[in-house]
């Protein structure tokens, strides 16, 4: 099976699939943090946290400061809003569809009763 190249939305969902990364994001909603701050609640090495941060950066969910020593991680909510909009858009799409499905089924029931 070939590996599917992920579109931005899928990358967002994939980045969010990991509980540690969701924990990191939750922490970042309170403000910027460095790797040490982020590692603290978990039994993780700095290297492991950096790896998670890299995935979050690739998904556009996190940006890193320029200061080489400190480089605080900062949350960027834009991709999450896109993910949220994706869910909302599809929900609306299906709700419209199923209303039309209901009408269609009613129509064919009536026809069956008439004939």
């Amino acid at each position, binding site marked *: 099976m*070939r590996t*599917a*190249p*992920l*579109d931005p*939305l*899928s*990358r967002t*969902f*994939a980045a*969010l*699939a*990991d*509980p540690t990364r*969701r*924990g990191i*994001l*939750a922490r970042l*909603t309170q403000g910027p943090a460095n790797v040490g701050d982020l590692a603290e609640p978990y039994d993780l090495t700095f290297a492991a946290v950096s790896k998670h941060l890299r995935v979050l950066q690739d998904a556009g969910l996190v940006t890193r400061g320029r200061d080489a020593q400190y480089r605080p991680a900062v*949350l960027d*909510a834009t991709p*999450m*809003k896109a*993910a*949220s909009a*994706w*869910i909302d858009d*599809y*929900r609306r*799409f*299906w*709700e*419209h*569809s*199923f*209303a*039309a*499905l*209901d*009408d*269609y*089924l*009613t129509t*064919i*029931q009536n026809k069956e009763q008439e004939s």
Partner: protein
Amino acid sequence: MTGFTTDTGIEIERDFAAAPADVFAAWTTPEAFARWFGGDQVQVPLDSLDYRAEAGRSWSATMVLPDGNTIAWAGEFVEVAPVSRLVLTMTDQPDVDARATIAVDLAPTETGTRMRFTQTTPGFTAEQREGVLAGWQGFIDVLQQVAKG
């Protein structure tokens, strides 16, 4: 109708005053599917529809929006079990490999049929999907905090 976001993406439950066989036919017959797919504001021209409900078979459709724009849909039938279950993949971006999986389960009720519909988010490996299943709620929590800002 109840609709909510679940572990896997979108889940919608809806009751219809029609037998499961009728609801299943509405999902699997091209003429019927074209009537309701996308709602009453859009058109799915029958000649644009390649839609034969057989497991393993690809399907495609063109949707014409009220403003004249079109959406190209494509996917594949995964499971076709009359008259209780239908699973298919779909996308509105056929040039991207990621596909959402939708599953439709039908159960008879006293008044007709209860349909349970789920749609997963696209682009997951099995492992990633498990990860999402394990903790989608955490994502939603974060999302709600963040999307407000």
